[in-house]
């Protein structure tokens, strides 16, 4: 399928609010046809960056372009870019259907599209109810419907998984994949790595308004996985596993690097060594993410 999305270019973006610098000389780009995670702790400048991209906030310095254009120069912006910024941007006294209709009228989107999207995000049954009574999850779904209203090629979603139940998160993940597979540009922000880990192809990580990493998620993790073993006869196990050097741990267990659990298990079985624990230590992605985003030093 032809690519429908446009490239997003953030170039030297700086935004200061008074004395506070929210975004500091940030440069990255987002390609169509994949899901890009926009990661960083709360207050890292993700929302400000997105609002700059959408022309809601004026950059202090630098430029933001979608398909080479500024947002405000787009003709028919909602058919090019869809955004779900915060689940709070609703009039509590207006029904979900009317909220979408008001925007559809302004964007000259067909009314049938409103009903179609209410169905897609699972709000068809409550579409006539006032948004004031909606849960956070329902608001997130409504915000998503709003973003999709003009069938845009670029989607900017700010913390879309917030407030969704586990089933909702699985559904969202599938939806994002489908949208990217259509050739759209999908940028999803989150402050929780685990939330997007399974659904993004690429990440842009920022901290204190600065870029700390852009690339694949795999590049973010470092070093091979390790295996943790507890045995009453460590020497016998070390002899059986001569190709690996163990590191004794404080609690009496051993950590092997460069071997798999299967290697250790087989060696122990063949040598008749008794094992009390055999664990693959998880990849250190999460701690690497924390390291990257808490010290704030750009790489």
């Amino acid at each position, binding site marked *: 399928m032809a690519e429908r999305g446009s490239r997003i270019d953030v170039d030297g973006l700086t935004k200061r*609010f008074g004395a506070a610098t929210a975004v500091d000389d940030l440069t990255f780009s987002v390609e169509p046809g994949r899901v890009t995670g926009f990661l960083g702790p709360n207050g890292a400048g993700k929302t*400000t960056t997105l*609002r700059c991209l*959408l*022309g*809601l*906030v*004026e950059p202090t310095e630098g430029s933001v372009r979608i398909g080479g254009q500024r*947002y*405000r120069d*787009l003709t028919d*912006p*909602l058919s090019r870019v869809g*955004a779900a*910024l*915060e689940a*709070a*941007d*609703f*009039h*509590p*006294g*207006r*029904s979900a259907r*009317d*909220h979408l*209709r*008001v*925007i559809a*009228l*302004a*964007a*000259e989107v067909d009314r049938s599209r409103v009903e179609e999207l209410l169905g897609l995000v699972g709000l068809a049954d409550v579409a006539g109810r006032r948004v004031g009574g909606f849960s956070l999850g329902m608001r997130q779904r409504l915000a998503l419907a*709003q973003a999709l209203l003009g069938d845009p090629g670029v989607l900017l979603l700010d913390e879309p998984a917030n407030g969704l139940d586990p089933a909702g998160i699985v559904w969202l993940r599938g939806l994002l994949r489908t949208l990217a597979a259509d050739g759209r540009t999908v940028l999803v922000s989150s402050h929780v790595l685990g939330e997007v880990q399974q659904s993004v192809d690429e990440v842009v990580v920022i901290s204190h308004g600065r870029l700390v990493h852009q690339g694949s998620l795999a590049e973010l993790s470092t070093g091979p996985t390790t295996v943790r073993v507890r045995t009453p006869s460590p020497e016998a196990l070390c002899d059986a596993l001569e190709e690996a050097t163990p590191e004794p741990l404080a609690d009496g267990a051993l950590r092997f690097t460069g071997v798999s659990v299967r290697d250790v298990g087989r060696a122990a079985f063949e040598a008749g060594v008794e094992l009390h624990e055999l664990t693959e230590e998880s990849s250190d992605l999460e701690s690497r993410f924390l390291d990257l985003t808490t010290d704030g030093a750009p790489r």
Partner: protein
Amino acid sequence: MRVALVRSEVAKILSTRLWWGLLIGAVVYVALSALATALTAGMDPGGGQPGSAPLGEPEAYRAVYASSLFSGTYIFAMILGITSMTGEYRYRTITPTFLATPRRGLVVAAKMVAHLLAGVVYGAVGLLAALVAGGITVAARGASLGLGTDRLWESVRLAVLAVALWTLVGIGIGTLIRNQVAAVLIAVLVTFLVEPLATFLLASIDLDWLVRWLPTNASAAMTSPGSSFVDYLDWWVGALVLAGYAAVAAGLGMLLSVRRDIT
């Protein structure tokens, strides 16, 4: 001006309950005002004050129908106008609004057109309330309804136009002052307290020529010409002045407030 934007603004008005809440307030106010005006028409207020025109005279019918319709409706129409802007900030719907229409001036212009229409509807409903409450009271006093009175309908048309112009003034205020409570409070205080005081003070130091240009007196030029100690403008000048206040406030708002970041 894109018609689609105006339709969107009309849909915004109609899809929350505020418009009919304010309209009920206007209807009650108009009905009470028409009832009181019709009841007291021709009575001597005492203390040597001039009495109002007795029923049967054109002036009395104009007061019962046209003046009541205006005085009971315009504040509510103005508040509707104010909230059309401030409500967007208050409930943060300004984000989707500006995402759909990044050229922010177009949004304000579309609101003005939509609310001019809403103001005409408010005026028309106010007229209905004045006709029913005023008519019943006039009939109960045994006078003729006076609906064929000379120039009555011209006054009614001007009163409806004045109500519509006050919704524009409201949008101007709301464009300038983002905070809803502050905007409504300031607007009501100015029209009910500051302006009458200013009118009185300026008139008492022989600055009548200035007094005529205040918003309330400009609209009074449309709704009650020649019935006060102020020397009013011609009705059409008054209408232009009122529209001018709306335009100046909205223009200042565009420069000072609307262009600001939406965070």
